[in-house]
């Protein structure tokens, strides 16, 4: 029994497809949708002094921008009668998705994929591949 559809959403086309898929499935089963927007961030990357001074200001702007991406689609799904919540987080996308999934035992992760058959991106690994290898819950990759 799946209670929560955790969707990786950043406003891009593949993530929109993932959200559509999850919304449809959740409606059919009476499950919730959790929209997650992860902003890529590593605490070990190098910053110049000016970037350090501006980091807090920039972070606030980034969160506002991410919210502007996530909130309208959540409202739209709510209007459709779904129970929707959302999270904007900083970190490694795969790690954060897995961590959130760990807190929702009966859930499934839904992410989109760019749809390239490019050899390079296969070797580099995509979010979908990392999730399949590490996720504590089932993963659906929407083409």
């Amino acid at each position, binding site marked *: 029994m799946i209670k929560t559809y955790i969707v990786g959403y950043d406003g891009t086309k593949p993530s929109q497809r993932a959200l559509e898929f999850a919304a449809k499935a959740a409606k059919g089963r009476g499950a919730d949708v959790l929209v997650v927007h992860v902003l890529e961030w590593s605490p070990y990357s190098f910053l110049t002094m000016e970037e350090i*001074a501006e*980091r807090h200001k920039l972070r606030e702007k980034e969160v506002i921008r991410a919210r502007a991406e996530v909130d309208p689609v959540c409202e739209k799904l709510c209007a459709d009668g779904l129970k929707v919540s959302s999270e904007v987080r900083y*970190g490694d996308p795969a790690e954060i998705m897995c961590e959130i999934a760990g807190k929702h035992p009966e859930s499934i992760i839904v992410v989109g994929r760019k749809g390239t058959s490019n050899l390079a991106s296969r070797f580099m690994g995509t979010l979908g591949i990392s999730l399949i290898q590490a996720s504590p819950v089932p993963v659906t990759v929407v083409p």
Partner: protein
Amino acid sequence: MSITKLGAALMAVLTPILAHAQAAPGIDETINAAVAPVSNFIAGIIFYSIPIGDVAFPLIVGWLIAAAAICSFYFGFIQFRGVKHSLDLVRGRYSDPNDAGEVSHFQALATALSATVGLGNIAGVAVAVSIGGPGATFWMILAGLFGMASKFTECTLGVKFRRENADGTISGGPMYYLSRGFAEMGKPGLGRALAAIFAVCCIGGAIGGGNMFQANQAAQQIANVTGGEASFFADKGWLIGLVLAVVVGMVILGGLKSIAHVTEKIVPFMAIIYVTAGLVIIFSNADKIGWAFGQIISGAFTGEGVAGGVLGALIQGFKRAAFSNEAGIGSAAIAHSAVRTKEPVTEGYVALLEPFIDTVVICTMTALVIVVSGTLDSGLTGVELTSAAFATAFPWFPIVLAVAVVLFAFSTMISWSYYGLKATTYLFGENKTVENIYKLFFCICVVIGASMSLGPVIDFSDSMIFAMAIPNVIGLYMLLPVVRRELVQYQAKLASGEIKRFF
């Protein structure tokens, strides 16, 4: 400003200067003659030395070491008791995951280190052991260990009294703790005066020691490694300077952070190559390690064969440590104050690792390699001595060292441009025009520093860096109780579990 426009602007400003420099070979002497009296006077005051035996002891070195020792005792040797907590903070064990996306302690440490690790670790140490003998190493390590406490103090104060600007950015450093901290103690006039002196010296230091001196050394090193006197670059310092200036300009004026990121990724890599190569040399001479340490210890207390004996070794070691890790100068406080943290003491804890890495690890490494490789008696000094020491094991190392010197010089310039900028905005207010004038002037000085042999100008500006220590250390003494209060309440919160460990 776009890059092409920037380049064009730089060229427009510099071409007449360079043309003049080329046409009139006497321009160096003219400027030197004009500046020398003033420069000698000021450098004479800052580096005022008292003769002890046959050696001169610069008072400013004593001033910095005394401050470091007093801070060490005042905080009960926090540098040893607190080092585990420092490492935990850097590893992010106390970082709230909800604050992800803010500057981490690791990032603050890495950025501040990139400003201090540089020529001092490579060339300065070689000067110290060639004059002060192996024993100088012992005193250098001791001074480095003490310096951890003054770093702790100044960086805690930097965060405590920083100012948050209307746009969400942060300004901090000695200018702010001198003016605001003294105002809290009811001495606003004195605070503002000290802050202004500090800011002026900081601008001078940024332009001089943090810029012209670095450009000059980088240009010399490039010329040396490409064939010395016969090199294509031997009389083309201006060309190297121009290239450096354009790259520096792209970062600080053009906002091209990616260049800074590339160098800052190579700099740690260089540091790793340097330390690894050093370790390989030391361990391949494993039979001599015991002997080398014997030399260092006995040299420290007997001063055998050193001009000035024990005191000569001690002064060289202390001087080098103070020059290399900048503890007590106040520069690191500017860098650390921008970090977002609820507890000022956490930045102090993180910052105290800097003198350790800079002096106790990297400087000691250089000294050991020189002693173990047996090049100490070769008559060389400075970068050439270090270069020769490493070349005994790796003949190709001088080239790596030259690249490292240029990159270290570049990252030091970028960092000091920021310190100078902060001092400028403290004096003249946050104003884009003033900032851009400062930045353009900074770029022009790169070319001047690289192309001219302006000895007196460089002496003068180098002395400005140490002049920063005078107002800063006075501030540290006066504000010690504030730091203790912060430390006590922080430790209480740690003990009560109010400050949580997350990982």
